[in-house]
């Protein structure tokens, strides 16, 4: 693209949005687990340019994660079985948030737990931490009390978790949905009813890869989550279905590598997007996507990004 980008990068009024009560200077955020705690990218990416940063999922206690190998590349994607390794709530508040607070970019803390009570505790303890604009509630994690069924796979469990968090958090909550369900609209409606201020989707798709030579699985955990360009068409379909099922804002995630990918989600009805795996391939992906979206708006005569949201032309 030949467009040079805005004069004051990242602060074009054309791009600013309000999502679930959080003000973003543009609709492009870094997805949870793919941008660490921001510090890993600071030498390469101007964090002030991002619409938002979703931090690596946090649990109450530090988690060790799965044993390696944890990642494998597949056709136009990768499968990971990190196992939600994270520094834990205390270290997150003490060591990670103060760093992120320096930037003019909203930080959304991703949280997950094994029980509704753990979710509540996380929401409570993060509620008065300065520098956190909102929570992203990751319900693609196993419910310990229910034999490891994913919270996000059952409308009732999803509802319970979201209602619990909502009662303890004064800041906006976005609920991140798992695509590994039969009907995404049931879950989307359930979390909306429970008080979610927005939803984001998709998390990774359960997947697997085998080495035919050794006949061994390529991940020590055998199965993991697929991300990257390979999942984009599936993600787009799920976002489209969710957009049609709920009134609250929807954030599109899945395989976004380019401005055009992001535009597809926005046209399908997502108010904003998150960029994940692309950050590994091109650490500056978010910024390039922001510039590309803005160039598209200018070129096509849109005054504001909102005009584009849900503008899908159906014959």
């Amino acid at each position, binding site marked *: 693209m030949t467009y040079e980008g805005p004069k004051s990068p990242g602060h074009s009024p054309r791009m600013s949005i309000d999502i679930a009560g959080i003000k973003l200077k543009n609709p492009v955020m870094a997805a949870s*687990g*793919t*941008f*660490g705690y921001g*510090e*890993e*990218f*600071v*030498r*390469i*990416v*101007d*964090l002030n340019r991002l619409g938002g940063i979703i931090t*690596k999922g946090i649990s109450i*206690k*530090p*988690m*060790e*994660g799965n*044993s*390696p*190998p*944890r*990642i*494998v*590349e597949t*056709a*136009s*994607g*990768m499968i*990971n079985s*990190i196992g939600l*390794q994270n520094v*834990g709530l205390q270290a997150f508040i003490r060591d990670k948030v103060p*760093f992120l607070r*320096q*930037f003019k970019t909203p930080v959304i803390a991703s949280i997950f737990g*094994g029980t509704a009570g753990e979710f509540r505790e996380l929401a409570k303890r993060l509620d008065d931490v300065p520098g956190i604009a909102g929570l992203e509630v990751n319900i693609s994690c196993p419910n*310990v009390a229910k034999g490891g069924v994913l919270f996000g796979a059952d409308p009732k469990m999803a509802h319970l978790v979201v209602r619990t968090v909502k009662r303890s958090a004064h800041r906006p909550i976005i609920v991140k949905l798992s695509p590994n369900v039969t009907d995404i609209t049931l879950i989307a409606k359930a979390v909306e009813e429970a008080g979610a201020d927005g939803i984001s989707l998709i998390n990774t798709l359960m997947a697997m890869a085998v080495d035919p030579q050794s006949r061994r699985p390529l991940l020590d955990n055998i199965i993991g989550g697929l991300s*990257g*360009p*390979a999942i984009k068409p599936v993600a787009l379909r799920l976002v489209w279905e969710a957009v049609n099922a709920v009134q609250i804002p929807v954030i599109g995630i899945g395989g976004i*590598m380019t401005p055009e990918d992001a535009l597809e989600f926005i046209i399908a009805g997502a108010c904003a997007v998150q960029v994940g*795996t692309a*950050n*590994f*391939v*091109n*650490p*500056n992906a978010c910024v*390039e996507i922001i510039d590309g979206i803005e160039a598209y708006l200018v070129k096509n005569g849109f005054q504001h990004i909102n005009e584009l949201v849900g503008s899908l032309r159906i014959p």
Partner: protein
Amino acid sequence: MNSYETIKDRSMNSSPSVAKEGGGPYLVCGTLLENPMVVSSYHKMRIRTPIPYEDIHPGQFVMVRISEEPFPLLRRPFSIHSLRELRTKEGSDIEILYKIVGKGTNLMASWKRGKRLDILGPLGKGFSLSINKGVQVLIAGGIGAAGLFALGQKMKALGLQCSVFIGGKTKEHILCVDEFRGLGADVHMATEDGSLGFRGMVSDMVRSFLHGLPDPSGLFACGPVGMLKSIAEIAKSQSIPCQVSLESRMACGLGACLGCVIRTKGERPVKSQGETRHEKGASYKRVCKEGPVFNSEEIDWRKI
């Protein structure tokens, strides 16, 4: 190709709190100067980059973007084999010595002089050098030689005496002999089939060499895990400090994805009855960030 900002522009992005840590990593556009085959299935590429010479340390690596297309998707990690400062002081030429093993390295081998390359680096923690009078012992297995030559260059610059051991399956897999000799190092070779030098494992040759050596001051090893394990054992039994350079599958190279971890003997959180306690014991470390060079004592070799 993306038009990346120059590194001068990028350095403005860094916040004061991280600026003191020293330079890099940088996301830069390099130019391929040459990419010849050195021996069958091994190539060496020389890349002109704007990366400041003083920011690169032996043992560090770069992540090379293979394709602008979605497949192959991820960058590939390669050790910085050698480096040279540009006369203009505006960057450095780095070399990558690589073995063709799959899709990415096959594509790389087809790249021609003048190609613009998308390079992320320098990454990770390199070798640490104690300036000490004894003999430094460098041990390479196969393509592991790629990760040790820059260290040899540095040792030469510091006036350290080094002995180099290079092992491989056959003589076709013995790399960099002339390069190391060019540094003035004495070079020993071992092949499993006896086609060149000592017949057997390079670790066996190192063991007997160390027996006759009055003051070895450190071992530095890069190669297959089996070899590294043997070297770590030798180092332990003879109480010689030993650093090893490890590999692992990587996605980001920046410490963000937690995909590249290996087991170490650090502190670790242990779960019991829903509670997590911190016990002294194993923990995971990121090869791309805390490594790729580790003290051999740190590694939990049973888990590798």
